[in-house]
């Protein structure tokens, strides 16, 4: 058991003068690895052929993973705060890589349920724990720039698919001897290779991560600096108390609306551009999906970093307010040109990514850094809910449009206007966010209060 003590929070405290820019690669290593889940679609058609089934049973693997992501982040958040980032990253790495191993076994033995259990259930737990593991650590290292810090980490989740998609295709083609008609054994080897690769990269991240000592502060920064800004508090709220505040549920609504609107496009991107423009080929549509992923990733870093300057509430006004206008423009003028359509939807997807990356910093502003990882975990249930609602809205309206004899862009008109409404709801929820009432704050001895300490 002594060897496991290396994983404990107290053994990850950084020595004095440890440079904080040595921490972000640990977070990026974990998020780039688990971000592979967004590239799961590269396996779908091959798995359908291998199991001789339809798309729906294969799609369930991804759905289980995303549901488990939200549940494990919500349930495991407090455990993550207590045990620290290194222990969490190691558990996440073991779950995520085991998920690939068990999934490979399922393909090799033609047992689809093993993919549900492995990649879906176990891998999903790895996703949830890995997603929240570096967030509160980075916020503690960058109390002066929390938006930049969380944007950097969560950008990795968006970038994971960019890496995994071409890598998985290359590996399958290599093991298969050809990119066509991918055999089961080539997928097994690809799963095992990815599992080992992600295990190594995530463990490197776990060994690299450090938490700052309790009295550590960036040079020239004091808690009073941020506590003076609107909505930013020098006090702390526990995860148990946070979910009793209206602010938590307003932010839940904000995240739900932002993600619902983004997923609506993300999930239907390829058929949508082809319905809008008959001249776009399947290959061009695939290129468009890649471009949207780039916008999603860039938005996570750029918009979240900008939130440190203009404030969290203002940046969500931009995501939701301008997002609604852009959706309206897609509905009204989306068919004018491919370039305009790509630019509008690319901007919407950058706001989608920005919404994910900025929310931990928003939570830190409102609830303090005490249990921000656990609160973030609970908030991610909005993601699971939006993951169901977004595609449901777009698919249901498109199906009813088809039944009514509509075609092309007309299939999406009602969905697009619905998304405008969803974003307006999120905009209003964000407008209503006010500082958390003092009755929810953790008791702090007078001499330990950050303002008391700074001001004497």
């Amino acid at each position: 058991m002594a060897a496991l003590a290396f994983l404990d929070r107290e053994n990850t405290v950084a020595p004095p003068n440890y440079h904080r820019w040595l921490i972000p690669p640990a977070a990026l290593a974990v998020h780039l690895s688990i971000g592979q889940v967004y590239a799961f679609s590269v396996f779908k058609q091959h798995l359908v052929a291998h199991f001789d089934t339809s798309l729906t049973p294969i799609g369930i693997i991804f759905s289980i993973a995303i549901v488990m992501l939200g549940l494990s982040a919500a349930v495991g958040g407090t455990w993550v705060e207590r045990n620290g980032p290194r222990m969490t990253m190691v558990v996440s790495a073991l779950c995520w890589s085991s998920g690939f191993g068990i999934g490979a076994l399922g393909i090799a033995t033609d047992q689809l349920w093993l993919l549900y259990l492995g990649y879906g259930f176990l891998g999903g737990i790895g996703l949830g724990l890995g997603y929240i593991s570096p967030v509160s650590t980075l916020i503690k290292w960058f109390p002066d720039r929390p938006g930049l810090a969380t944007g950097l980490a969560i950008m990795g989740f968006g970038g994971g698919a960019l890496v995994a998609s071409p890598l998985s295709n290359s590996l399958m083609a290599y093991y298969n001897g050809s990119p066509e008609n991918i055999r089961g054994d080539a997928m097994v080897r690809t799963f095992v290779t990815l599992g080992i690769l992600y295990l190594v990269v995530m463990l490197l991240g776990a060994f690299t991560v450090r938490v700052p000592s309790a009295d550590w502060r960036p040079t020239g920064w004091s808690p009073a600096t941020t506590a003076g800004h609107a909505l930013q508090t020098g006090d702390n709220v526990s995860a148990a108390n946070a979910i009793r505040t209206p602010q938590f549920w307003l932010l839940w609504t904000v995240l739900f609306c932002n993600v619902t609107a983004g997923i609506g496009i993300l999930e239907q991107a390829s058929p949508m551009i082809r319905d809008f423009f008959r001249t776009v080929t399947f290959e061009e549509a695939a290129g468009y999906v890649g471009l949207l992923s780039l916008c999603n990733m860039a938005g996570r870093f750029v918009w979240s970093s900008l939130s440190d300057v203009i404030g969290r509430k203002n940046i969500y006004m931009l995501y939701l307010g301008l997002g609604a206008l852009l959706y309206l423009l897609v509905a009204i003028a989306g068919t004018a040109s491919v370039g305009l359509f790509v630019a509008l939807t690319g901007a919407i997807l950058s706001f989608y990514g920005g919404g994910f990356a900025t929310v931990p910093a928003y939570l830190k502003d409102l609830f303090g850094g005490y249990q921000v990882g656990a609160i973030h975990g609970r908030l991610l249930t909005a993601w699971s809910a939006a993951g169901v609602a977004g595609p449901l809205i777009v698919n249901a309206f498109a199906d009813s449009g088809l039944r009514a004899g509509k075609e092309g862009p007309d299939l999406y008109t009602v969905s697009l206007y619905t998304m405008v409404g969803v974003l307006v709801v999120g905009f209003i929820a964000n407008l209503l966010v006010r500082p958390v009432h003092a009755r929810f704050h953790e008791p702090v001895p007078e001499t330990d209060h950050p303002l008391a300490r700074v001001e004497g």
Partner: protein
Amino acid sequence: MSDHGPSERRSASVALALFLWVVVLAGLAYGVAAAFTTAVVLIGG
């Protein structure tokens, strides 16, 4: 068991973190280049 001093452990930590920076930036560059090539070449004609 280990007779490595704090300064040696610190140097190893720094070296590992710098190595990981290289790994993640190389990974991101690979992903961005692949997506950019596919998207821009295809959409650009």
